[in-house]
Every structure is written in C-alpha cells, then in structure tokens.
C-alpha cells in the first residue's frame, strides 16, 4: 500500500436542518491508526461518508496529500486511494466471495497497486478460501468483516476508513481483526481512520484519537492519554 496523509478542515455536513458533522478538523497520518470515538449519533459515520464522498459537506475541505477531494464523486475518491469499509460492512451478498474480492482487485489494478493478490488474501483469511465460490450472504459476521477488509486491501489504498468493524462480532474475533489491522499498519504504513463505539478496543490499537459529540470534536489526543482520562471516558465513551 502507498501512504497518504488525510486532512479534514472545518468539515460540516447537514441532513436538512440537522447538523451531523460540525466544523470538524482532523489529521490522520500514515502509519498511524486514528480512532474516531463517540456515542451513537455523534456524527462518526457521517464524517466517514463525507470523506469518502457518499455525502456532500456544506462547508470545509477534505485533503489527501494536499489534494482537495472535497466535492469529488465517491468513485473517483476511491480511485484516488481512499478505501471506505462502510457501516454494515458493505458485503455485496448477491455476488460470491471471490467476486467481491475481484471487485477490490479490479480497483487495485486500475490504481496500479497490485502488491496484494487474491492468493494472499485467502492465506490471510482461510475461511474465505473455503467459501470462495459461495454467495457472500452465507458468511458469518466475522467472515464478512474479513471479506470486506480483504477486499479493501486489494484496492491498494493509501487511506483506510473503517466504520465500526467490531459491530456484532465476538470479542475474540474482534481481537483478531484488530491485531491484523495493527500488523498491517505497522508493516505497510497505511493511514487508518477507525470509527468505533467499542472505544476500549479501538484505543488499545490506536495511536491517536478524537472524540465526537453531537458532531463536534470534544477531545483530541494520543490514544494512551485518552484511555487514561477517566472523566472523558465516563462522559463520552461509556467506560
């Protein structure tokens, strides 16, 4: 994967009268996992969807290595190297496991980033190899998460946006997936923005974090400091 630094400046996104993301500033550096934390409805998902182009912001900028991607179409943002694994995982259930992965590989080929191949993804995630020709809807939650992470890897991204990858997964699987992410980031220097409600697990692998509340950034620090801040944790993170 190539590296890229992601910057968000004064980003504001509204759904009609409701301001979901309120003047958010954020810098996510290569080789680091930046956690985006906060309660339900804090604006975390909308933030990711604005960065990846699924939703238009009403103000502010999204910059990738200094290039302004703010009002670019989602498919072009993906082609620029931002891989967004959305809320709910985004498995295309009518396609097979292999077809889902091939879609990722096609983008990787288009971006000329073919460092990862299908064979490698199957080695990383043996359950996917077993089910490669089956329709993706037969996969369990953990297997689906593996599928969409594998698919995102195949695109050769500079930036990886992950929306609640731990949702609905057993703690053991969550630990596996988080360990895998940490390993990848350390090995390849990808920029990762990790949205999680499971703040404890997220902060255990993150380098830095921001906390959102009602669309605004209420805390910004390195992960260890955030995890140690009891008042903050109680108020916004639920532990």
């Amino acid at each position, binding site marked *: 994967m190539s590296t890229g630094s992601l910057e968000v400046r004064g980003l504001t996104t509204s759904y009609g009268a409701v301001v979901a993301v309120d003047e958010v500033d954020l810098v996510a550096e290569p080789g680091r996992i930046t956690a985006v934390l906060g309660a339900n409805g804090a604006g975390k998902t909308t933030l990711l969807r604005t960065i990846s182009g699924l939703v238009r912001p009403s103000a502010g900028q999204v910059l990738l290595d200094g290039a302004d991607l703010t009002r670019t179409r989602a498919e072009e943002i993906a082609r620029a190297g931002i891989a967004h694994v*959305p809320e709910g995982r985004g498995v295309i259930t009518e396609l097979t496991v292999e077809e889902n992965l091939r879609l990722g590989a096609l983008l990787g080929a288009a971006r000329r980033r073919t460092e990862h191949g299908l064979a490698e993804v199957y080695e990383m995630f043996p359950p996917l190899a077993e089910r490669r020709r089956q329709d993706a809807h037969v996969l369990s939650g953990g297997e689906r998460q593996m599928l969409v992470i594998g698919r995102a890897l195949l695109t050769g991204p500079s930036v990886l946006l992950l929306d609640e990858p731990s949702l609905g997964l057993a703690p053991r699987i969550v630990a596996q997936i988080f360990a895998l992410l940490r390993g990848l980031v350390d090995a390849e220097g990808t920029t990762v923005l990790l949205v999680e409600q499971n703040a404890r697990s997220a902060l255990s692998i993150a380098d830095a974090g921001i906390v959102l509340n009602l669309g605004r950034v209420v805390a910004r620090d390195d992960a260890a400091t955030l995890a140690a801040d009891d008042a903050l944790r109680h108020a916004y993170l639920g532990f």
Partner: protein
Amino acid sequence: MQQFLNVTLTGLGQGAVYAAFALALVLIWRSTRIVNFAQGAMGMFTTYLALTLIEAGQSYWVGLVVALVAGLVLGAVIERLVIRPVEGGPELNAVIVTLGLFVALQALAAILFGSTFRSFPAPFDLRGFTVGDVNIAFTANSIYVIAAVVVVMLALVALFRFTDLGLQMRAAAFSQEVSRLLGVRVGRMLTLGWALAAVVGSLSGLLIAGGSLVFPAYMDAVIVYGFVAAVLGGLDSPGGAVVGGLTIGLLLSYVSGYLGSELVALAALATLVAVLLVRPQGLFASTAARRV
C-alpha cells in the same frame, strides 16, 4: 398431433421474441429499477432505420447491424439525457418519462417514416417444412429467430458471468453505494445497461417484423405480451424472462390454435392478473418484496 406440433413450434418462435423483449425489460429493471415503457418504441424506431436502408438497396444483414448499433446508441443517449435526471427519485417520475418517450417515439416515427403499412423482408424462407407428407408450420425463418435470440442471450450471460465489466455492472445493479466505494463508475454502468437492453429490444423489433408488416404501432402486441412475460418470469430474473417469454408464446399459441385467436389478448390479460394475484414477484424472482 400435427396441429399440436405446429402450434407448439409457432409458439416457440413467438415466445423467443417475447423472451428477448422481456429480457430487455429485465436488464433495465435490474440496473436502474425502472420499467422501460418505451422499450418497444425504441425497437420500432431502430427497425424503421433498418427498413429505410433495406428499401434503399442494402441487404437485410446490413439493416440488422445498423439497427443493433442504433439501438446501442439510442439506449445510451436516452439513459444519459432523459432517464438520468429521474433515476433514484420517485418511481412515478420515471414511469411518466418512459411513457412520454413511448408516445414521442411513435409520433416521431410516423412523421419520419409515415404511418402506412410497409412490408419488412424475412432473411430466410417463410414456407414451412414438409416431412414426408406432413406439413409443419415451422419455417427456416423461425429457426433463425430462435437462434438469434439464443445467441444474444448466451452473449449476455458470457458478458455478465465471465468479464470484469460484467462483474462491475452486476455490482452496480446490486449495490450502487458499495460499488462506488470500490471505484466502479456507476453512471457508466447504468448507461451501458440501457444500451445493451436497447440492443436486445432492437433485435426483438427486427425479428417480429421479418415477413410481416411494419407501422408505428406494430410493436404494441410484443410490448404487452413481452411485459406479461417479464412479470411472469420475475422482473429481477433474466432466466425468468426467457422462461416467461417462451411460456407466454406457447400459451398464446395454444389459445389461438385451439380456442380461437379472439381469445389471445384475454388469455394474456388473465395470465397477468393470475400472476399478480398468486405470486406477484413472478416465478423466479429472489425476493417477494423490496424493503425501502
């Protein structure tokens, strides 16, 4: 027995054309969730283009190629200019737009090509075969019709199953948002879907015209029966379109042959009502209802 054979073979020939038309409807439904009420008019228009060339001295095959290419272009242009603004909005808007297109194309055809009945040549023999002393009402042209539809369908299956482009088109149809996140240029996939559907619609317009008379409204029967076939098979299912088309073709042929041709339209209507009452999603659709 002979009559049964004749009626069955005729039904298969007609059914192949309905299947092609139903397939065009299904392709557009799957990619854009729109029922293209103008499909028949588009096919009629491109057939008139072919007829103009043929009457000017070109061979049938030149006319065929021109009609298919014109269909491709027409489908792409219509999607980009007329349909794109109403995609993703309230479904009624798309219905009104395609109905309006239907009316406009028929009127335009009448202006450009006249509304008199014109005969359209068939590329192959229209006489039935004689086996021994039995006359079979199955013609060389019917074989061509069925073969043409089969070839086009196999080509489409190959495209969707085995090519990268086909994979991207399917992904865009199943999940636009996720496809965007994977760099699929969804807009182009939708345009291509309409273009391919228009090619299939053009083919059905040409095939039904062969050996028959062409006038601006000549596709109306195919439109109605093709639509019933698509509903019967399930708007979501290309395989269903084929089965539905052949079934309707056979059914209407039996009704015409054994009960009287006046009852054909009634039989089609009865089939439509029965499908909508008993299994509205059609025989082969995967889901009974779409959650919004």
